[in-house]
């Protein structure tokens, strides 16, 4: 019993140092951050930051986002949308597993992703020489399962998704989006 208390104390101490490490990691520039910046950023050859901002707001509306916050002087637009997150494969797998367990006389609680909130924030910035505007967009999402619990939270890092977003933005702004 004494050894159990000791283990518990050690575990708690380990939790403590872990927490600081995790917090530190969360605020540390990761080696991959430069790659992500490239994926998420494009340059438009215009001095008109307002044009880019309103084109962006238009694209967000096209995509069904609700605009939650704008701070035009800082070049910021924030939006979100709530959507279904059901994936047929996952549901089928869970139901199959539950049926299998039931067949063996047990009870299983099939769990699958049900809903998601997708968040987007866009920051525009005049380039150093003031000849262009750079745009950086980031998508995140929170996914809830069919029990109403948060299943996962993540930042979207897929390059193709960002590419498609910028294709739409360059069409809306009548400007070409250049890689940085």
């Amino acid at each position: 019993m004494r050894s159990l208390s000791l283990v518990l104390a050690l575990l708690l101490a380990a939790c403590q140092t872990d927490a600081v490490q995790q917090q530190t990691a969360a605020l540390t520039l990761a080696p991959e951050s430069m790659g992500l910046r490239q994926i998420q950023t494009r340059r438009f050859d215009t001095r008109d930051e307002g044009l880019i901002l309103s084109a962006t707001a238009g694209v967000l509306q096209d995509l069904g986002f609700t605009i939650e916050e704008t701070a035009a002087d800082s070049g910021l637009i924030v939006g979100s949308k709530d959507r279904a997150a059901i994936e047929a494969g996952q549901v089928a797998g869970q139901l199959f597993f539950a049926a299998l367990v039931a067949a063996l006389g047990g009870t299983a609680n099939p769990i699958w992703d049900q809903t998601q909130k997708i968040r987007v924030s866009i920051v525009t910035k005049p380039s150093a020489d003031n000849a262009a505007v750079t745009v950086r967009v980031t998508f995140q999402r929170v996914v809830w399962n069919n029990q109403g619990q948060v299943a996962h939270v993540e930042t979207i890092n897929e390059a193709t998704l960002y590419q498609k977003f910028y294709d739409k933005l360059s069409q809306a702004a009548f400007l070409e989006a250049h890689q940085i």
Partner: protein
Amino acid sequence: MRSLRLRSTVPHILLLCLAMSGCVTDSKMEILATDKSQVELRALQTRAFDTTNKALTIRNVLATLQDLGFVVDKADEKLGTISATKLSGYAMRITVTVRPRGSAQMAVRASAQYNLVAVSDPQPYQQFFAALEKAMFLTAQQVD
């Protein structure tokens, strides 16, 4: 045999209860709870930069937060406040304020929470300001 084991277990449970009661007496206490003194927190969360350009400082904070994987939630140029969230298996929320300090500097203060706890250790903030320094091309100076 059973009563013997019970006799040795009960004090441990009591001890555990006591230890836990030391932590949480009333969850309303969280409303005004801090892990460090106000002076300590301000010192480790604040840095000064040799610039008077508030707008540029705000834009550099936005860029740094995006580099760190945050989605910016809100910004207010007048107040100089920026709030952002990072979701990566955990949820980190951060507020950064930018305000003039004297006539030649801007003071930047960051405060964050990680899931359900306040971030009050110096290391995470050191990393944040190290990243901000790169965006600002200026040294982040400790303030007292």
